[in-house]
């Protein structure tokens, strides 16, 4: 009859019994629980799930393909399975992989794993993550070997890459900054591995620390990860701490919403962070935005063409966009984002606004914003000309100062991958 308990309580009860059987002291059990919980939190902050879990697949079972210009890498299994996962690893070896980019046998890890960022993680945090990863269900599946083209399939090449782009070392707090700033810097530079996307990537697949957070096109995905230190892009220098925090935690804010790969980051990772951690990241990110931006872009199309585009763009905007974003581009924030004074529309790279028009934009569902409003796709109803025209129009109206875009640019992005 009616005596079934909620699942969580059942699990906890079962867990308590098991621990009791091992005769572990209650205090030690509580400490272990707390460590696992802390590790789970840090694994969220590090967004391990994004690469190490196939969508809909077993948690941390690995095998998620990561297409790169050099071939396809497959993420590793980081469950406690002895044969396929990290079951035989010690906490020391786990820390070494995070800190030095070498696996338990000393082998070199491809830098798709963000060890240049994770090297900044403290030993204590690494141990907590290790404890958490030991607690998840083991997955027995073997992971596919990487599928890299010659010469990139030669792992010793990583040595050269490391010389150029990797400097080992934990995060060193800056005594001249606040505690919140240092906490934010630790998370952004370390576990958050934000620079993996938000820095320019060169032909060797590396980015230099001096150009960190200057923004870049994410290889293969064809999304532009904007500069975090230019106010002309995603630099947050003139944003309030509250707006930055809203954006990171809920995916929407009065100034704009996240979309594309950043929506996944908020969904899988940032929405779970505590208020002080989000606040620290906001403080640190705001301070980054004080730098000057990249050079002004050079117009790519003639002014006569752009005036034609503008006229068409105004018509398309009026009939397709204005009912949500408003005639004056002010939107109805946070759910219908403003386009006027929206940095992500005016950036020198027009990739993101073009893709938003073609494929729509979908902020993540978060506890703080459980029903995000999606922008519908227009690829099926607007021609390349119309897409170029409306993007040109929104990039240059209401005080926006973005360059015109061409139908050819719009056309090229029709084949960009959708996930």
């Amino acid at each position, binding site marked *: *009859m009616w005596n*079934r308990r909620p*699942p969580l309580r059942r699990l906890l009860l079962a867990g308590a019994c098991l621990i009791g059987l091992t005769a572990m002291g209650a205090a030690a059990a509580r400490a272990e629980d707390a460590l696992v919980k802390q590790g789970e939190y840090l694994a969220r902050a590090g967004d391990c799930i994004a690469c190490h879990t196939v969508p809909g697949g077993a948690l941390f079972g690995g095998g998620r393909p990561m297409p790169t210009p050099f071939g396809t890498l497959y993420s590793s299994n980081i469950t406690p399975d002895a044969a396929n996962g990290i079951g035989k690893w010690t906490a020391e070896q786990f820390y070494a992989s995070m800190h030095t980019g070498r696996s338990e046998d000393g082998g070199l890890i491809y830098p798709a794993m963000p060890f240049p960022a994770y090297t900044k993680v403290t030993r204590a945090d690494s141990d907590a993550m290790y404890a958490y990863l030991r607690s998840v269900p083991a997955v027995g599946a073997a992971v596919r070997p990487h599928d890299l083209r010659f010469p990139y399939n030669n792992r010793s090449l990583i040595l050269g890459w490391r010389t150029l782009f990797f400097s080992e070392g934990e995060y060193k707090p800056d005594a001249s900054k606040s505690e919140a700033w240092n906490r934010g810097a630790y998370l952004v530079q370390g576990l958050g591995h934000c620079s993996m996307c938000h820095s320019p990537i060169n032909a060797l697949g590396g980015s230099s620390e001096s150009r960190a957070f200057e923004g870049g096109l994410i290889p293969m995905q064809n999304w532009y990860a904007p500069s975090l230190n230019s106010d002309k892009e995603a630099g947050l220098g003139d944003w309030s701490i509250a707006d930055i925090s809203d954006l990171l935690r809920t995916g929407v804010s009065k100034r704009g919403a996240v979309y594309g790969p950043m929506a996944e980051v908020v969904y899988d990772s940032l929405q779970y962070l505590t208020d002080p951690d989000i606040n620290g990241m906001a403080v640190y990110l705001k301070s980054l935005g004080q730098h000057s931006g990249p050079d002004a872009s050079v117009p790519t199309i003639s002014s006569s063409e752009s005036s034609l585009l503008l006229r068409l763009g105004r018509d398309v905007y009026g009939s397709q966009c204005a009912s949500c974003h408003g005639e004056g581009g002010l939107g109805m924030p946070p*759910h219908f984002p403003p386009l006027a004074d929206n940095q992500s529309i005016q950036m020198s790279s027009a990739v993101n606004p073009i893709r938003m028009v073609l494929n729509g934009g979908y902020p993540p569902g978060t506890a703080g914003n*459980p*029903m*995000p*409003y*999606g922008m519908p796709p227009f690829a099926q109803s607007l021609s390349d000309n119309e897409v170029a025209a409306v993007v040109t129009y929104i990039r240059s109206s209401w005080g926006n100062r973005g360059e015109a875009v061409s139908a050819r640019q719009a056309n090229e992005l029709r084949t960009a991958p959708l996930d």
Partner: protein
Amino acid sequence: MARKLPATDVVVIGLGWTGSILANELTDAGLNVVAIERGPWRDTAADFPTTYAQDELRYHIRHDLFLRPAQETFTVRHNVGQAALPMRTWGSFMPPNGVGGGGVHWNAETWRFLPSDFQLRSHLTQRYGAAFLPEDMTIQDWGITYDDLEPYYDRFERLCGTSGRAGNINGQKQAGGNPFEGPRSRDYPTPPQKQPYGPVLFAQAAREMGYSPFPQPSGNLSQGYTNPLGVTIGPCTYCGYCEWFGCGNYSKASPQTTILPVLVRKPNFEARTLCEVIKINLDASGKRATGVTYVDTSGDEWEQPADLVLLCAFQLFNVRMLLLSGIGTPYDPQTGQGVIGRNYSYQVTSSVDAFWNEKNFNPFVASGAIGMCIDEFNGDNFDHGPHGFVGGGYMGAVQTNGRPILGTRVPPGTPTWGAAWKKAIAQNYLSSYGMATHGSCYSYRDVFLDLDPTYKDAHGRPLMRITFDFHQNELRMSQFLTDRVAEVTQKMGPQQIVKRPRTGHYDDTKYQTTHTCGGAIMGTDPKTSALNRYLQSWDVSNLFVTGATAFPQNAGYNPTGTVGALAFWAADAIRNQYMKNPGPLVQT
């Protein structure tokens, strides 16, 4: 042979309005809930984006959101003397399909029933005497009162963010609202939608005639609103693609825009879509449900054991599921005995078309529930003594749409095709207007649902048979209501009006409304009702049946407000009474 799955606390059949409400309430209470839905998952961003959802051909003409008759249909006849034939394309009503159910494609007219509607037989008998009612009319009291339900109406309106103006707050009449409504504990969550020209003109004429016009309560919101679950519903853009369509603007209250974003995040909730429940299983005693059997898209059968079964599908499907599962005694129209299939009812709608030469109504500025209505002729708000019928309905100018294919009207005598027709469409699109009445439909001994002896579905199970026709009481009522709304329309000064009262036999090929009701009704006596006042089956106490299935007869309003309130009412009964002491909540 069905494969048996691990047991769960609750299985929900059908993930529409009531399934979502109950699943959310019971997961909040800590129970594990599995919802099984025959149709697909539906999501605003992916399934109804505004860039292509406003497609009248796809959704209205080709019925894209609805069940396919090849999956399940109904046979229909007017009386027991006829052989029923299957509906091979949908006509008078649209059976929903998929997550969100009818909540996806409704117009969002969010009404409460009148207090007297819930005690209909005793109220009418007391006022007019038993002999005033037709002999074969089988109307009943519901077993609950308006006051019982008021807090739950309130919860549904807060969930939806309903836009309207109160007419009666705790007994105090409020100017501008419906003076006939039952007392409500507080005003609507959001103010009424903006009224277009047609409703404004109607209200002006009605006021001059001494009536009290008020804005129709709307689930298409006048402004942004964050509901108690933390979900924000957007403001309506008045695009006029509501009924038959999913709303791409997040502004029509639906499970998608009010509950599901919260429900799907819960670890103790699971939805299985594209899975069709074929049977509620009973134990050897026949008094206890053990779970359900369903078929997935591969044709594989699965048994889902559960402690509690909630039958939350569309009204007609609920009744058929009970009949196919052998729960309760099927109704027999010869003897009047039995309860499953008893008191089937519908809705009696009519309209008045009006044509002007010069006016511009901008009919495309529309929402499924913007309009001005009067309630003087609803329920028992007026003396029926001189009129020889009972029942009534609201009437008014409701600007649901100005869609190009079916949202147009031409004066009588216009050819139905060709140049003259095109010219008349162009001439009248902006300058014509349709008023509507929305009347009650009471229940009768010879109107019922049972299993068809001839026709079967793809699984070899009998289809359900609908035996229904309009009775004189309803036709007289429709004539009366149509005459009244025509008087107001006349006052608006058109050049021509055309009255279209409901006449003759029920025509299941012409769309009227999807408000089919009854068949497993709630009440106080197991001999005349299938469910007790908490929507719990009298026969199988761990089965609750939601929706308009429980209405003993239909009132002169759209049913969803009452359907939603009853779902919250049943959820409270399960949480506060049943979970503490599982078993019948009403002793007989």
